[in-house]
């Protein structure tokens, strides 16, 4: 095979001097410094996160609720266990708002005997505010009457329960935020243990693959197949209904999701060239797992944790609803909801406040984790 046949070349190409064939690029390669500042992965993600309005609103919402949960039970002046049977089921009464006609501590009592209104033992001085309806029932004069319920039960003048009281006369504001505290703690600890177990289990199973993976995956599947409620009930019976046992109950199957996620991430990353490169340098397995592969799974992991927190709060409420909640007199949002719905028709506010709070928490956590997922998306790296 011929390459360049010098004789076939036209005249002008025949006698080119060697100097025509020198590389133009003579100087050494030397790169410029970068003009920009180095930006780490997390700073980059945080910059993107702070640009999303929804995320910022939801994160402030979460922070606010956490602050309230830490603060409120200490400053209401009531303790969450303090019972006062004389003051049970008081409606909400808030300083300032009472003059506007909302949260003024009034209730409408229906079907009362009209005669009794003048009895100061039953209707103390000034407790009757307005007679809404007068009617006759089997010859007895009856009324629907709007009363100042605080005066009606004989509470002191300066007693205020912002969210009312429950069937034992405990202040619901204190209990609600104490409950939030406990619910958040249960959620936090259960997600933390789930994460811990799930990450290690998933990492081993994904990194080593093959037979190890097969066995570990099957074990997880068997656990996952057990009826969750039954296991939880057994757990509660065994360990009592304390916080620890609830956390453990939420952990039994909770970690499986995390481990699956981590396993799939490990499968995705362990064959990457940078992992192979580290292996050819002799980097040991543990360093590969924790230093090279795991940091690349942090994005999905954080997102999952953020989604798991409202999930855990919800599961806890669900357990409480079934009567498997945390031990009395400790409240949790779930316990409050369960108590509240028993008297939903008479005292709707007892359900309303915990319901609003749990909804807020769920929405805020979900929106925040959505924002976080977008912010941590590696394909958006470096974007504004």
């Amino acid at each position, binding site marked *: *095979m*011929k390459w360049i046949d010098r004789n076939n*070349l036209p005249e002008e190409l025949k006698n080119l001097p060697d100097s025509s064939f020198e*590389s133009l690029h003579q100087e050494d390669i030397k790169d410029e*410094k*970068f003009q*920009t500042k180095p930006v780490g992965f997390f700073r980059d993600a945080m910059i993107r996160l702070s640009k999303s309005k929804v995320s910022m609103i939801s994160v402030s919402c979460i922070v606010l609720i956490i602050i309230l949960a830490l603060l409120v039970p200490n400053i209401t002046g009531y303790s969450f266990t303090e019972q006062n049977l004389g003051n049970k089921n008081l409606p909400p009464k808030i300083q300032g708002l009472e003059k506007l006609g909302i949260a003024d501590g009034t209730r409408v009592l229906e079907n009362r005997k009209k005669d009794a209104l003048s009895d100061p033992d039953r209707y103390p001085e000034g407790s009757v505010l307005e007679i809404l309806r007068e009617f006759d029932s089997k010859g007895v004069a009856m009324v629907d009457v709007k009363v100042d319920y605080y005066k009606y039960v004989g509470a002191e003048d300066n007693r205020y329960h912002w969210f009312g009281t429950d069937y034992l006369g405990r202040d619901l504001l204190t209990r609600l935020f104490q409950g939030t505290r406990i619910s958040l703690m249960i959620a936090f600890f259960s997600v933390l243990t789930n994460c811990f177990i799930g990450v290690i289990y998933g990492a081993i199973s994904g990194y080593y693959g093959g037979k190890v993976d097969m066995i570990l995956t099957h074990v997880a599947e068997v656990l996952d197949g057990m009826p969750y409620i039954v296991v939880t009930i057994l757990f509660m019976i065994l360990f009592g209904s304390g916080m620890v046992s609830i956390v453990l109950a939420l952990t039994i199957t909770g970690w499986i999701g995390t481990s699956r996620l981590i396993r799939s991430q490990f499968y995705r990353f362990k064959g990457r060239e*940078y992992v192979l*490169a580290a292996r050819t340098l002799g980097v*040991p397995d543990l360093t590969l797992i924790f230093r090279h592969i795991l940091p690349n799974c942090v994005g999905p992991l954080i997102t999952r944790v953020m989604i798991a927190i409202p999930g855990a709060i919800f599961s806890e409420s669900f357990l409480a609803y079934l009567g498997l909640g945390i031990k009395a007199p400790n409240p949790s949002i779930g316990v409050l909801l369960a108590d509240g719905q028993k008297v939903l028709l008479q005292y709707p506010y007892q359900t309303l406040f915990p319901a609003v709070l749990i909804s807020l928490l769920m929405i805020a956590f979900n929106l925040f984790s959505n924002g976080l997922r977008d912010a941590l998306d590696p394909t958006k790296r470096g974007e504004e």
Partner: protein
Amino acid sequence: MADSQYILEVNNLCQHFTSGHGKKKMTVKAVDDVSFGVRPAETFGLVGESGCGKTTTGRTIIRLYNPTSGEVLFNGRDIASKMNGDLRRYLTDNIAMIFQDPIESLNPKMTIEEIVGEGLKVRGMKDRAEIRQKVIEMLRKVGLVEEHATRYPHEFSGGQRQRIGIARAIIINPKLIIADEPVSALDVSVQAQVINLLNDLKEEMGLTILFIAHNLSVVKYFSDRIGVMYYGHLVEVAKGDDLYRNPLHPYTKALLSAIPEPNPLTERSRVRVDYVPERDHDYSKEQPSMVEVEPEHYVYCSPSELKKWSV
């Protein structure tokens, strides 16, 4: 080809990947009975089309994959045998690899300093300042500046990343570097830059390079000897010049005919040859094997083909 003049000697190396079980079991013979040797301080080029098993060969040598069978000798020591701590250390101290994909081969969550310094850390260097010092020295060697050490990979261009990959490989002072298509993902202008850098380093540090590429023109410029691979087989091994002057295997001819020529006049008359194994070979009667047709020039052929080709 047993010969102690080789620093790396690959004998009958096979790497078969299997998938599925029972009836659905499939075997891919990514590398099948490959033998060659690399001399100290030379550059051995391994070429072949995409998917012919070049990467697999390189990765099997450095034991990212466990070989199905065969023998790999490095300085006389078998490195294809059962893995243990001692062998691992021997391997990682002597052989380093440069990877194909400049984006994939650097961990996006680590700074350049961490990436390049990793090899030292693994070897027990504790002092951060000392590691930093070495890293900066290496970065300078590959044409980067000190300030780049604190950066993350995504801030670099492809050529720069590939140079970072080179710095990571040479920081441990290996004897052999397996360069797996280090330039195929780069722009032509940058390709020359990276190859020149490798060449300089090779001379400076006395490196031996196993250079993998799918493009003969790159290998031609760079390699002392060249092996041509086709579907898991090594079909021809020769000195660079011999291969260009006198290609014997039809696949080598086809590869050579695909190189565009710089001279527009000869380029116009360049004829592309194609390679169809079914048409070009008749292996029904005789089995092909590796034959040394002239000194240092091996070709994979059957006896009748040998007669036909070597006239």
